[in-house]
Structures are given as structure tokens and as C-alpha cells.
């Protein structure tokens, strides 16, 4: 187990290093670094000074090391627009994005697993078929358009829910969250559903496939032969077998939720880091872009790592396999 964790962390470190090279090469080599890092309003003299101050006259590898050193100390430059450290700005927006992503994941799991179970058990009936058709549609329809339609229906036509913003937040351990007030909840509902819709379809598909596969297996029949109630056979025996792959996949999808939050945040004007990214791309605020990319990539690597470890904890078979190594 420990060997596994060490090996996995080394691997993650290498990926992170590679991504930092990519971002560095992208921003510093392909684009003109002076344009990127010096405010366009600078005078020619300031320009020259800045080049020397930032060490842009030095060779590439030395520049990269400087960049890496800065990054490791949390210094990714100041935002042109806000004139504050880019990293700080991103981290300020992080809780809102995480809240949205977890809300979406929650919706996907809480609705997706029961729906998938029903669709798997009654796969031939109209109930199962309509759940499946719904999930196929959920896969095909682009998230951003669904978001627009949700605003049109629930905010404009029916007027039930607000179309944008985060609403009232409450501090929990110093982090603002929205799900403690009705206003906050009403604000997060539409974006979370919108972001979760794709994952909901995925959960339904995975759960349904798992249910159908497991129901065929002998252990289900044996459990029934023991005289267990249907509820226990499905709710304990089948569900526990399905949960492992579903949770693994959904855990890995948390990262993609954070990436896709860019779209949802833009539509619903949700003040997360995704919206900040799109705004920054619009005004060429490149330090923010770099900070966003590095933070997101780091989160991705951490999530993948945690899910891998969790998976081996959840599945007794994997756990044993690792002990042998």
C-alpha cells in the first residue's frame, strides 16, 4: 500500500512538472513574454527595465527555473486588471467553483444511482426505456444550451429561480458557502443541475449497465435463495458491487466538473474561477490564465491520485492485489 502511494505520488509529480513546462512554453515562448507580463501602458524605459528585472535576457532554461521557483513559492505574477497576485485571485474564487462542482456531483449521484437502478431492474419496461432515452439525450445536448433553456424556462418564463449570481452566502470555517440559506440554495440550484446533467446521464448509464450485469450473476440468485428480501438483494448486494466502479468514475469526473464549470459559471454569472478565466482571456490578463491552468491541473492530479487510493481501499480485491507486490 505504501509502495503504491509513493509510486503514484512520484508519477503525479512528473505529470505536474510536464504540465508546468507546457504552460511555460505556451505562455513564455510562443507568445511574446513581454507583452504577456508587462502592462501594455508601460513606457519604453519601463519596458527595458522590466525585461532585465524579470530576467528575460537570460537563456530559456534559466527562465524556466525562475518561473518554477516563483510557482513553488506561490508567486505567479500580478493580475493586470486587479493588480493583485493572480494566485490569490484564483484561490478566492475557488470555493464558489468547488461548491458548484460538488453540488453537481451530489445531484448526479443522488438522482443518478436510483434512476440507474430502476432502469437496470426494469430495463424492458417503459419506465426503464424512458430513463435510458433521457440519459441518451443528456449526453447529446450541449450543456451550455441546456443552461440557456433552463434560464429561459425557470427564470424568464416561470420566474421561479434567479438566473444569475451566487446569492446570500454564509461563512463556514471562514469559507463562504451558499447552501445554508434559502436564497443561496435558489441561486445554486439551476447552475448545479445544469453542470450535473451530463454526469447524471453518465451515472444512470453506469449504474444501469452495472445493475444489469450484476443481476445476471449467481451471487444474486444465491442471495435470493437465502430468502433475502428484494430490497436487501438490490440495496446491499447489488448496490455495493455497483458502487465501486461508479464512485471511481464519478470521482475522476470531479475534475472534469471543475473544468466544465467554466461554461456553467459563464452562463449563470457564477462568481467562480471559471468565469474569472473567461473574463481574463477576454482582456488578455495572462497571469490569471497561467494561475488558473496550474491550479486546475494540480487539482486534477490530486483528484486522480486520491481516487486511485480510494479505489484500492474500497475494493477488497484490489487491496489484496497491491499487498502482494
Amino acid at each position, binding site marked *: 500500500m505504501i509502495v503504491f502511494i509513493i509510486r503514484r505520488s512520484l508519477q503525479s509529480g512528473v505529470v505536474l512538472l510536464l504540465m508546468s513546462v507546457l504552460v511555460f512554453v505556451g505562455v513564455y515562448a510562443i507568445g511574446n513574454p513581454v507583452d504577456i507580463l508587462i502592462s501594455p501602458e508601460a513606457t519604453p524605459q519601463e519596458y527595458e527595465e522590466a525585461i532585465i528585472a524579470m530576467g528575460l535576457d537570460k537563456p530559456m532554461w534559466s527562465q524556466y527555473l525562475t518561473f518554477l521557483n516563483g510557482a513553488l513559492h506561490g508567486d505567479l505574477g500580478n493580475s493586470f486588471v486587479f493588480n493583485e497576485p493572480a494566485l490569490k485571485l484564483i484561490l478566492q474564487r475557488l470555493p464558489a467553483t468547488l461548491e458548484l462542482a460538488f453540488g453537481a456531483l451530489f445531484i448526479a449521484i443522488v438522482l443518478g444511482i436510483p434512476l440507474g437502478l430502476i432502469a437496470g431492474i426494469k430495463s424492458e419496461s417503459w419506465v426503464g426505456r424512458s430513463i435510458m432515452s433521457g440519459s441518451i439525450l443528456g449526453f447529446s445536448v450541449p450543456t451550455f444550451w441546456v443552461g440557456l433553456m433552463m434560464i429561459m424556462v425557470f427564470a424568464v418564463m416561470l420566474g421561479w429561480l434567479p438566473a444569475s449570481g451566487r446569492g446570500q452566502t454564509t461563512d463556514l470555517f471562514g469559507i463562504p458557502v451558499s447552501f445554508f440559506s434559502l436564497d443561496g440554495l435558489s441561486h445554486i440550484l439551476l447552475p448545479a443541475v445544469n453542470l450535473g446533467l451530463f454526469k447524471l446521464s453518465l451515472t444512470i448509464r453506469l449504474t444501469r449497465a452495472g445493475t444489469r450485469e450484476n443481476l445476471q*450473476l*449467481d*451471487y444474486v*440468485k*444465491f*442471495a*435470493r*435463495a*437465502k*430468502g*433475502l*428480501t*428484494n430490497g*436487501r438483494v438490490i440495496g*446491499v*448486494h447489488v448496490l*455495493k*458491487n455497483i458502487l*465501486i466502479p461508479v464512485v471511481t468514475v464519478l470521482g475522476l469526473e470531479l475534475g472534469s466538473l471543475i473544468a466544465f464549470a467554466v461554461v456553467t459559471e459563464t452562463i449563470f454569472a457564477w462568481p467562480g474561477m471559471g468565469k474569472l478565466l473567461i473574463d481574463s482571456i477576454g482582456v488578455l490578463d495572462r497571469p490569471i490564465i497561467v494561475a488558473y491552468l496550474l491550479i486546475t491541473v494540480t487539482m486534477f492530479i490530486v483528484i486522480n491520485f486520491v481516487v486511485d487510493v480510494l479505489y484500492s481501499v474500497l*475494493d*477488497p*480485491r484490489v487491496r*489484496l492485489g497491491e499487498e502482494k507486490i
Partner: protein
Amino acid sequence: MSDKEQLLVIENLRTHFFTKIGVVKAVDDISFSVNKGEVLGLVGESGSGKSVTGFSMLGLVDPPGRITGGKILFNGQDIVSLSDDGLRALRGKNIAMIFQDPMMTLNPVLRIDTQMIEAITAHEKVARRIARERSRDALSLVGIASPDERLKAYPHQLSGGMRQRVSIAIALLNKPDLIIADEPTTALDVTIQSQILYEIKKLCRETGTALIWITHDLTVVAGLADHICVMYAGRIVEQGKISDVLDHPLHPYTRGLIGSVPSRNKRGSALYQIPGMTPSLLNLPEGCAFRQRCPRADNDCLVCPEITSEIEGRHLRCFHPHVEILHE
């Protein structure tokens, strides 16, 4: 055979599967009975409907299959007409089942104790601690060493033979009247096979549990069963006392089956083979299903033979049985 002793009586049972390409008559008009404490061998090739017969007795036939006719009287009560909940109460409590493949029957992600305790608590309200003790006792009964440790194990940590012992222990937990064993030794090593066989036989004798042993292997049944039913293509073609049937097989199919057991042939001589293939249950030939492979078949066989009683306690479905061997 007095009625008092009869534990299970099956009358004209039919279990059909309604698939998209046609009706599969997996079990078609079979009748037999099992007395208390008796062992019945249900023998047939794969696809002859013997497993479906077993599942019918527990009400565990999966759709698109269902029981379309007949009665299954268990202690005088018809199982076929029981409600889902009535069936559930019966399963595992009065009738238990052991499956073929021990690798597949235990849930891979639940610990052994969970899977044993739930089998008890599904039927009676007992404290977990007591259920656990009973599970441990059942494990030692089937010859598992250090049962306390095994209870905490996951199935994949046990060997195949060990897992099958666990399944047997689970079947014994509620002291059932009848155990249906569906080829429980087929997936095991030969040495383990005989151990398990011995174990089940001993336990059934000690507890007075009746046993239905489903198998394709005549040699297994020979040393175990009191009675035997030979199934072919969904029907019982011959049934009777084990010694009668094995020593004097009357149905040509039984004869062929016995003839193809290696140990019964002389060394060096070619093994007997029943000609042809098992017919698909989807389109069985008219009349006797064995007709196309039978050396004795004639135009009489174009009609399905009814059950004919040749000798006391012995039933046949054949127009041309080998009666001559009885007079040899």
C-alpha cells in the same frame, strides 16, 4: 411409500421460457416426489432442464421464464400459488440451495459473516451476536478450521473448496427440510469433490434433511442417492430406485448414458457414444424428443409417450423400453 413421509411432491410441472425467437420448454410435464430425509438424484445432460427444475422449486425462475402449469407441493402446500413474500419466507428457511460455482455464488464485496448472518436474520429475529455464533458453528460443522477468522474474510481470500463449504454452511444455517444441490462439486478439484460429497451426505443424514442432487455425473449419484430421475430435453424419461435404474436401465437414453460412463467399459474398447446431438429446446422433434438418436425408434415414437408404469415405483416415457433385460 406412505403419504406422511412425503416432503415434496411435484405434479406435471411445466416451466417455459418465452423468448423472442420462440417458447423454450425447459421443463415440460415432470412429476416426482421426495420423502423426508431421502436423497434424490436428478441426472441429465446440460440443457436438459434439471437446473430449471431446481430453481422452479424455489420460485427463482428468471424472466422470460415462468411456471406455466403443475403443482409443487411442499409439506402439502402448493409453492406455485404462493405469494412472493410466502416464497421468500420459504427460501433459505425450509428449502435451501447450493449452487454450482462457488467462485460466483458468494458476493465478492461482502464479508463472509455479513453473508451468513443475513441468511439467519432474514427469517428470524435474533441478536447479531447469536446469529454470528450460529454462523461460526455452521462453519465448523462443515469442516472449516479457525471459523472465527474465516468469518472476517472476503470470499476471494478463500479457496474454491473452502467457498463451497461456506455455501453449504449457509444452506444448513436454518436447518432446512430440503436442500437442492445444483452440481455443487462440478467446479471443484477431484479430491475436494469427494470430500464435499462425503460432507454433504453425512450432514444430511445427521440432520435428517432431504436432498435433491442435480448432476450430469452418474457416478456421483450412484453412491449417494436413494432414487434417481433421468431428464432429457425437459422431460423425465426414467425414474425409480437407484439400484433398479442403474442395474437395469429400461429407457434407451438411460442405457446410453450408463454405457458412456468410462469405468463401466472394458479397458481398450471404444467408449459408447449416444449418436447425434442434444436437440435444441427451441424446436424439439415431434413426439419423443430422443427419437432421432434412438436405435429403437419407430413410427410409434412420433407421438409423445405418456408416463408408463412398468414396475412398482418405476416410471418411464418410452414405447420400446428394454424390458427384456429384466428377464435375463
